[in-house]
């Protein structure tokens, strides 16, 4: 059996294998893209946009939780800051084009993210989760007491306006394709980040932080950067959400929302790229279906049960379990 192995052959085999996988991925992504492009003709566009906004929120959260190993329990703060900032600016400055409002909301969330990151990375593990939760509660109090948020009533009638000054976003189809483009751009950005050398360091921090430190990486700087990028994307999701629904409410700032994004990421598959998207789709659909039926008052406990089952029985999430299955049976 001792056949001489040529290293060039091995190299060739690896390249072929890689090419075959890339082809498969390309086909899969192409099919997904076609579905997303055609979807608004079949399904109500506002519902789809809701899924896309939450998917972006979960993708942002997963960059921190799934790839860097930092469990933030305060991501609702960024979603709400993005939403409120964009909503306030678009409602009060009619000359402002929609994309500028969204950019401003994202910037506001980014700045807040810098503050959160610098404070929270001073503690590790479980303390990190508690610090982010407490800081988010502080932000919640601020929004409750501020006049401009409308307090318990929320901020209503945010104008969708025009994109770049000439695309009317009041049209649901225009709005949908705009949200889709932003979502895909962000998804590709996160994919690029995760596969970059920077992303490799993040994964190293997740797997073994002391070793990453001993290899000479300034771990805190990487953590802060990952946190800020995650906060910025979460803010962007909130900004777009407020434009889509023309509404920004306290619910987005509540700790409940921070829990929901954790659930989305966990159910879909933390540490996978597609996982949070699948998870967000799943959770938004479940919530919608439940709210229509006899179980409409039982959404919270049912989400809790899903939480418990996911943690106990399939921690890899939907996408993670499918990947495992494919590897075992078809790979």
């Amino acid at each position, binding site marked *: 059996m001792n056949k001489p192995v040529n290293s060039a052959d091995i190299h060739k085999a690896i390249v072929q294998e890689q090419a075959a996988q890339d082809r498969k991925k390309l086909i899969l992504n192409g099919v997904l893209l076609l579905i997303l492009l055609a979807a608004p003709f079949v399904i109500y566009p506002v519902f789809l946009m809701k899924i896309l906004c939450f998917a972006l929120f979960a993708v942002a959260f997963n960059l921190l939780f799934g790839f860097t190993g930092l469990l933030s329990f305060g991501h609702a703060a960024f979603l709400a800051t993005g939403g409120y900032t964009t909503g306030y600016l678009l409602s009060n400055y009619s000359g402002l084009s929609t994309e500028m409002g969204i950019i401003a909301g994202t910037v506001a969330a980014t700045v807040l993210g810098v503050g959160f990151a610098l*404070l929270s990375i001073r503690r590790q593990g479980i303390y990190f989760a508690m*610090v982010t939760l*407490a800081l988010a*509660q502080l932000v919640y*109090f601020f929004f409750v007491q501020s006049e401009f948020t409308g307090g318990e009533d929320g901020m209503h009638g945010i104008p969708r306006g025009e994109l770049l000054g000439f695309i009317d976003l009041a049209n649901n189809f225009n709005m949908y394709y705009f949200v889709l483009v932003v979502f895909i751009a962000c998804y590709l950005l996160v994919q690029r980040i995760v596969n970059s050398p920077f992303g490799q360091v993040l994964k190293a921090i997740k797997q073994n932080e002391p070793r990453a430190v001993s290899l000479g990486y300034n771990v805190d700087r990487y953590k802060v950067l990952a946190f800020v990028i995650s906060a910025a994307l979460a803010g962007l999701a909130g900004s777009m959400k407020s434009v889509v629904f023309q509404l920004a409410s306290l619910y987005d700032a509540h700790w409940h929302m921070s829990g929901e994004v954790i659930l989305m990421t966990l159910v879909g598959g933390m540490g996978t790229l597609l996982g949070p998207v699948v998870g967000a789709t799943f959770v938004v659909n479940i919530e919608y279906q439940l709210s229509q039926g006899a179980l409409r*008052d039982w959404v919270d406990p049912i989400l809790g049960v899903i939480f418990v089952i996911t943690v106990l029985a399939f921690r890899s999430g939907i996408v993670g379990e499918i990947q495992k299955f494919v590897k075992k049976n078809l790979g």
Partner: protein
Amino acid sequence: MSMIFGVPLAVLSGQLLIGIINGAFYALLSLGLAVIFGLLKIINFAHGAMYMLGAMTTVLMFDYLGVNYWVALLLAPLLVGAFGVAIEYFLLRRIAGQDHIYSLLLTFGVALIISGVLVNWFGVSGLRYSMPEMFRGGVNLGFMFMPYYRAWVIVAALIVCFATWFVIEKTKLGSYLRAGTEDSQLMQGFGINVPLLISLTYGFGVALAAFAGVLAAPIYSVTPVMGSATLITVFAVVVIGGMGSIGGAIITGILMGVIEGLTKTFYPPASSAVIFLVMVLVLMFRPSGLFGKEA
């Protein structure tokens, strides 16, 4: 009437009293969190729900079974503690070897279930629990009016805190507990039933929360959602104090209650946020916490 910094003494001392009482609750709750954290290395996100269960059990036992306050003070922590042991045995134990983040998420899910189910049964408006007869009224201390019940809350909380400290630091059971914190595998090797110890520890920590819930029933509005906001504040208290020492948890809890009370007197709008602001300051200047050993 005598004034201090432009505030009548009676108002100031009244707010201070409320602050000390809130602080006693923070101390009891963070003590339970610290006990659980010591052996299980997890943060119990269901702690607020257990506190709420203690209060709800007290009200419901009185309404439906006529169980009086003193019996509830004993029975509610026992029931909730047993419930905690069941949660540990049936759920937390199954993921004991996994990353601690999972057990934290598991307790979060449990909290969602408990409070969600109770919201469905009882709504979010407060249930009424009438003050036990012997605690009605109060005594005039000259500079302020001291309701009997509030005095009792402070005394009871301090007794339980001290008893917990005594058991953990001075008794044989406590020495097992502390040894388990250091190296549970070695202790198992010495023939001590560590899984049982873990179950009982979780049950005991949860029972402390329920005890706080019983104390809270006559003075706070009892609702299925009363636990969550309190728990987040207690998390901030825990971050400020660190969970390294039992005494530290108690002192920080009461101190934060007092600071909250003082803020309510001098600048009311900031009173709900002040503990979180203290947490930010502590993170900036003493990141390991006031009594913390680890970062």
